[in-house]
């Protein structure tokens, strides 16, 4: 068991390293660099940047060095935990991301919890009462949820929220709390802003999960062990929840690996539309501005989260599914 864990750990580290190289190289592939986007930005305020000035700036930011040198300079700072300077923000990357990471977690965990709270019961109901009016209703709403792009839903809900409920637009805090230190009032303000983004982020996932749960459970319900359990007089509730549901949960556990990075980046467009102060919009802007230290760090972070997530889901599967446990002992 320990050997297995160590082996997984070494593999994980190698994967993360490979991701860091790929991230850095891919971000630098498109023509131009941060200085070209800086020039474009300066020309918007009526300034011209001459070739000599541009070269001086490249030198200042170390962008004139070969990619390998730049990569090692970045790696050195990654190891020190500073992750380099976010060029457009002119602050260390760790600060820029750090502010937003926690809020990202809060929004995403809320969205995931909401998804599960809605999807699992509805999925179970749909499977157990297959082809009942309730099942049809859930299916209908589910398909609409799948079909409507969530950014559009966000725009529509935001406008309706303003038009009929006078809700404030976007963001996670009211103006007066954005810069305020954490307090009970600020937390309450966050709670008030949370439902809309959580709902929008969660809705598409909910529809998908309902369908998966329904299909998985339907497979299980037809198996002989369910019939046996019923024949032995186990209560209906127990028959369903104790065995088939548990088996049907398997696919969820194995996809947790993807859930973690989704938590950070899967919602870029929705976060952008809702103006959430999360990591997603930051990644998009960093890519547009060709800020490879910021973008590289976020991609690296996503990579690490995927690796950690996969590792966790392996463990979770061991725990949920006795069959896998038995295999390990054999």
């Amino acid at each position, binding site marked *: 068991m320990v050997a297995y864990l160590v082996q997984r750990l070494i593999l994980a580290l190698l994967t993360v390293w490979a991701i860091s190289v790929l991230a850095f190289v891919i971000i630098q592939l*498109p023509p131009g660099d941060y200085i070209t986007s800086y020039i474009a930005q300066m*020309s918007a305020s*009526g300034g011209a940047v001459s070739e000599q000035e541009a070269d001086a700036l490249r030198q200042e930011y170390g962008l004139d060095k070969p990619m390998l040198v730049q990569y090692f300079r970045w790696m050195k700072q990654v190891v020190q935990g500073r992750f380099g300077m976010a060029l457009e923000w002119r602050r260390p990357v760790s600060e820029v991301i750090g502010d937003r990471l926690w809020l990202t977690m809060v929004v995403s965990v809320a969205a995931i919890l909401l998804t599960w709270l809605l999807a699992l019961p509805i999925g179970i109901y749909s499977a157990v009462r297959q082809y009942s009016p309730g099942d049809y209703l859930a299916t209908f709403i589910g398909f609409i949820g799948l079909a409507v792009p969530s950014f559009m839903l966000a*725009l529509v809900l935001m406008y309706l929220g303003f038009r009929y409920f006078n809700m404030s637009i*976007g963001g996670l805090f009211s103006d007066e709390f954005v810069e305020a230190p954490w307090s009970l009032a600020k937390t309450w303000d966050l709670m008030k802003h949370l439902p809309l983004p959580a709902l929008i982020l969660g809705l598409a996932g909910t529809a998908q999960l309902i369908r998966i749960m329904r299909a998985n459970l339907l497979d299980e319900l037809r198996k002989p062990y369910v019939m046996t359990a019923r024949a032995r007089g186990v209560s209906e509730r127990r028959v369903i929840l104790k065995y088939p549901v548990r088996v049907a949960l398997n696919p969820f556990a194995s996809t947790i690996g993807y859930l973690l990075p989704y938590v950070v980046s899967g919602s870029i467009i929705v976060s952008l539309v809702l*103006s959430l102060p999360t990591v997603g919009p930051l990644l998009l802007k960093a890519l547009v501005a060709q800020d490879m230290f910021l973008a590289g760090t976020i991609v690296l972070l996503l990579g690490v989260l995927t690796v950690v997530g996969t590792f966790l889901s392996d463990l979770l599967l061991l725990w949920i599914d006795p069959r896998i446990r038995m295999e390990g002992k054999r």
Partner: protein
Amino acid sequence: MATTPRRKGPSRREFIRDAALLTGGLAATGLGSRAIAQGQGSAPPKLGAQLIGKLEGPELILDPAKWPTKFSEAPMLAELVKQGKLPPVTERIPKEPLVIKPVHEIGRYGGTWRRGFTGPGDQENGNRIVSADKLLFWEYTGTQHRPCVARQWLLADDGKSITLYLRKGHKWSDGKPFTADDFVFWYEDIYLNKDLVPTPHPDFMINGKSGVVKKIDETTVIFEFPEPNYLFLDILAGSTAMGGGQALWQMAGRTMGAYTPAHYVKQFHPKYIGLDQANAKAKAANFDGWVAYIKNRWDWTLNPELPVLTPWKVVTPINNPTWAMERNPFFYEVDTAGNQLPYIDRIQMTVAENLEVLNLRAVAGQYDLQERHTAMTKLPVFLENRDKVGYDVRLDPALNGSDATLQVNHSYEADAEVAKWLHTADFRRALSMGIDRDQLNETFWLGIGTPGSVAPADSTPFNPGPEWRKKWSTLDVKQSNTLLDKIGLSKKDGEGYRLRADGKGRLRIELLTSAGAFIPHSQVAEMIKEQWKKIGIQADVKEVERSLFFTRIRANEHQIAIWANDGTELLYLFPRHGLPVDPAESLLGTPLAVWYASGGKQGKAPDDTPLLKAMDLFRSANGKRAPERVKIAQEIFKIMIDGQYSIGTVGQSPATMGVRIASRKMGNMASRQINAQHCRTPGTSQPSTYYFKA
């Protein structure tokens, strides 16, 4: 079938009609401010006209006899004075303050002005509001020079020098005196330092020779040039590297601005503390070297400690979710009643991750005054909610001729056949006459814009005359086709598109557009592509990200690029959208601009006589006096329009920073303000005089 069901509510058709009134109604007016002036007809005033008011603005009181003698200050500062933390107001304002008569009335102190910005790259959002730190400026009409930081100027008769007279007792925001030494320090230790300014700046040069700055006494500075440079007065008033002010020209890594707080900046400069110490300071603050660090320290958007001359100074830097500014207790302006400006205590900008959110927040009344990033296409929604939320919508049309200009690359050579046609005047004229500008205007400008050539607004001095608005710039499919047939493009393929003369199939012209402009350039290009079908020209629209757009232009790869021609109304200060003379950005051909800027040593000379003449005229103008310069500029516009070197579509519209959403609580809002880069809109409207009504 005997009874018709009773109708409940409006039918679909009615609904559509109502909606059309809201959007198309604006379009139908064709912006009749002129029609109203002529008092035509009994029809009710059109919506577009209602939204464009009379040009008005604050006035300066320059006669000391009319100045107030008693001064007062904001309550928040009075409190600090009482606690002994600030000197009294009479000691904080200069002995010769700038006295301003607000556009409507004397305001009252207090309040926080809420706005939206889009992130750390949106410095312009604040730069323009604090632009009162410019050396000279323009009257609210945008045509006359006026004092600003400098109280007076003297242009020498021979044009070889300009003397600036500063205000006695003028102080930086930290209370230290602002003097001629701050200019000398900037010139000697920043401008002449090769690490900070690798090449001399064109705004401080005449015919390739750089100027000098000298101190005459504490409050007198002189700028001297080896050759006559009459234009330098405009440069000091314009949004240029010499006259644009400290805030704008020392942010985001810039090094110009003509003056800087010497007493503060010295502590980071190697000449004063030694190279080792300067680098050590930078390292301690996590910067690679002293150059990066000093540029960070003198960036007003980032450093709350930096001494400034602006009405507000930053308290929360721009790289935070909120960008906040607070009043400068040493600001040099007072109103006619002797109240030190600004009236408003704080400015708080909140970040909006995208423009939809920003516009929706403006609709919801979450901003007190917003004219940046508010989109003209959102006008119907703005109007629908203005009474419910309580704001006014004002449109401030710009002065430039075309918000979506087809900038032809006159040094294009990658495809010899295409290059040949792009360099043919009749081909460009035909393209221009194949564009239905009215359709573009109705669709993308809600009918508010003015269709026509690239000529600036009729009210501006460089306008060559009203007949040049329409020259080669109205829809004439017949003449367009005749021209194209005549120049040798008469062969067509099965679908009616013209064929290349070299036998390599259909002639295709690429229209390069950039995403994220104030007017949707790509959609405009798509419509032009449709319109050009009638003249048998196949256009390919290629949209790229903004920095790639400029990269391709620098690499001389584009055929026709679409961009606004903003700034051309003051051609000499901002020529890059009108003539290929600025290598940093030349949509009309980068090699030509390199040729021009290098005095013919590098790049490529234009092979086109009229264009060469326009560039020569432009070069000759700097040393000429103002009236001659105006004539030359008109001449240049005539050449550029006659040859259709850049093809204008629709302009003089509020598309760029001209949709003003102002809360009805805000006072001293001009009903119309000049909307132009050189006026730093809303700079000439003096944001320091804005206030919140009780």
